[in-house]
């Protein structure tokens, strides 16, 4: 389990795929990253979350070796991110807004990148073809990178990031600017690669991160304001939220929410009916039960009282959590 508390470094160093310790980056007077310490466990899918200017792309760029830190340090698999020799075949990166070289064909570009990972030409060729197949781009091999659409270029860049099966992959805004279908395919690809390597995703798309990531850190104004497992961050293992039909009120007559009966359910710790939304928020003791058991019991009580239910969620959702934290 990742323990990611700012500012002190957390998590087991031995199991860490990436680590930052009191990481700071200044651009002139502006502090973009301010004393950030985090540990990403090996094999995790980790999200960097935050509003614009929060410092996530800067943190990402330091981890990718693009930027030099002004203070503190960053490590990838125990090495400085600029230690190319140690990391060339072990770290893959999808940079944000980096244009593919327009004159190269897709095949030439991927083979060149694979060869720079120290693969001999026949293996580089095979790795490039396999990687391009993974992003459903087999037909683009002879196409010039400069002639690709935005979505195609993003997928080629993604193929480049996963080239040669690296142990750590950093993805900066992997679905930004993509149409929903391509974005879905990219998410599926990332999910398919999950578990076999450590993946760090920096993104504005919170639904995507919630769906994909095991852990996340929320940054605001260069600092980590919250971090932990996705369940902890969204309180998915502490509360359930039941969205109710408009006009639903507290009470015991049919169609109304019997709050006291819900409170009597074993291991329920808090019950809050927000009548404006309207939404019923039920907290529970996670050491005694889990969200699924509580959902079943609460729904039974509500349905017995003929309450009209429009939806059920575990926790607050990452988006709500971010809004709570950074406004």
């Amino acid at each position: 389990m990742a323990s990611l508390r700012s500012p002190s470094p957390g998590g087991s160093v031995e199991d860490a795929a990436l680590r930052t310790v009191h990481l700071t980056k200044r651009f002139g007077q502006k502090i973009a990253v301010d004393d950030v310490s985090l540990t990403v466990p090996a094999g995790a899918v980790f999200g960097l979350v935050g509003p614009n200017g929060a410092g996530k792309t800067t943190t990402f760029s330091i981890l990718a070796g693009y930027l030099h830190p002004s203070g503190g340090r960053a490590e990838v698999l125990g090495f400085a991110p600029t230690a190319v020799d140690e990391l060339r075949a072990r770290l893959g990166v999808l940079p944000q807004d980096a244009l593919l070289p327009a004159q190269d064909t897709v095949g030439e570009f991927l083979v060149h990148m694979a060869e720079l990972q120290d693969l001999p030409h026949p293996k580089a060729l095979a790795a490039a073809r396999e990687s391009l197949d993974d992003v459903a781009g087999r037909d683009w091999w002879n196409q010039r990178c400069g002639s690709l659409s935005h979505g195609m270029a993003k997928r080629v860049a993604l193929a480049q990031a996963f080239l040669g099966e690296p142990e750590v992959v950093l993805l900066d805004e992997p679905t930004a600017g993509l149409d929903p279908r391509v974005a879905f395919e990219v998410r599926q690809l990332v999910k398919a690669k999950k578990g076999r390597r450590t993946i760090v995703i920096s993104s504005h798309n919170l639904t995507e991160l919630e769906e994909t990531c095991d852990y996340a850190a929320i940054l605001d104004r260069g600092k980590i304001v919250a971090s932990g497992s996705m369940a902890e961050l969204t309180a998915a293992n502490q509360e359930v939220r039941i969205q109710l039909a408009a006009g639903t009120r507290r009470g015991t007559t049919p169609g109304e929410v019997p709050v006291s009966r819900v409170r009597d359910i074993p291991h329920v710790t808090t019950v809050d009916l927000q009548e404006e939304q309207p939404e019923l928020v039920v907290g529970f003791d996670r050491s005694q039960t889990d969200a699924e058991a509580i959902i079943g019991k609460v729904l039974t009580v509500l349905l017995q009282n003929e309450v009209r239910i429009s939806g059920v969620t575990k926790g607050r959702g990452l988006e709500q959590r971010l809004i709570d934290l950074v406004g």
Partner: protein
Amino acid sequence: MRAMSPLVEIRLVTVRELRRSFRSFKGVLLGIIAIAGGAGVSMLLAWIDRAKRESLPPGIDIEAAQEPFFTASYGEETGKAIAACPYALWTILVATLWLGPLLISLLDYDTVSGEVQHRSVRFWTVRTRRSSYILGKALGAWFSVLAVTLGMNVIVWGVTIGVGKVPPAQVLAWGARFFAVTMPISAAWCGVAVLVGSLFRTPMLSLLAISAAFSGLWILRVVAGLSDWPWLAYAYPNFYDSLLLSPRPSTVALGLLGTGAIAALTTGAGASLFRMRDV
């Protein structure tokens, strides 16, 4: 784990840079202009050379006729050594030396800055030592320039053989020698171009800065000639042509050392600065 040799990295980046140069519209256009221009001018020069040789008074050979001019240009020893060369080839050598910086600045100004501006460089910095990237870029730029100038030279040699009255073996020998003189000098110019060009994120700024740096070096040469600081001329790559044309091996070695030092120092400085900067 075995570390990948920097030489392999440099080779891969160099080969890719050559491909990039000759696929770009700019590279193709400059190549065509240089080669077609060289062919046209060499036709005229070869014809002049032929007329000159045909109009020599009896008993005067071309070497004797040209010696005063070359002696005045390069000093007695070197002047005598190259006095027998075909005039067309020497003119192309001078043109290559003078127009080389222009060709290099136009061909290489975006070699690094273009990839920094569009952040494409980030695909490389994860997999290549930054010093290898810059050295590969510098070598790729140099080879691109050599390929264009060699293409131009080969056409000039062909035209000189076809139109002129000089035996082919002599044309090829003089041509190869003059081309060899341009090689270390263009390496020095390319080093300067890569150093200056890599400091900027915008290709247009990079072009202006390279042009300013080249002009600055030329001004140093002029100042060296007019002042008590003749050593300033050593910073100007074209200064070394007279050393490289010398019949004396030690002087040629000095020319190679000077141009090699400029190329090595500028490329090394470019690599060091690039390693320290954010991309």
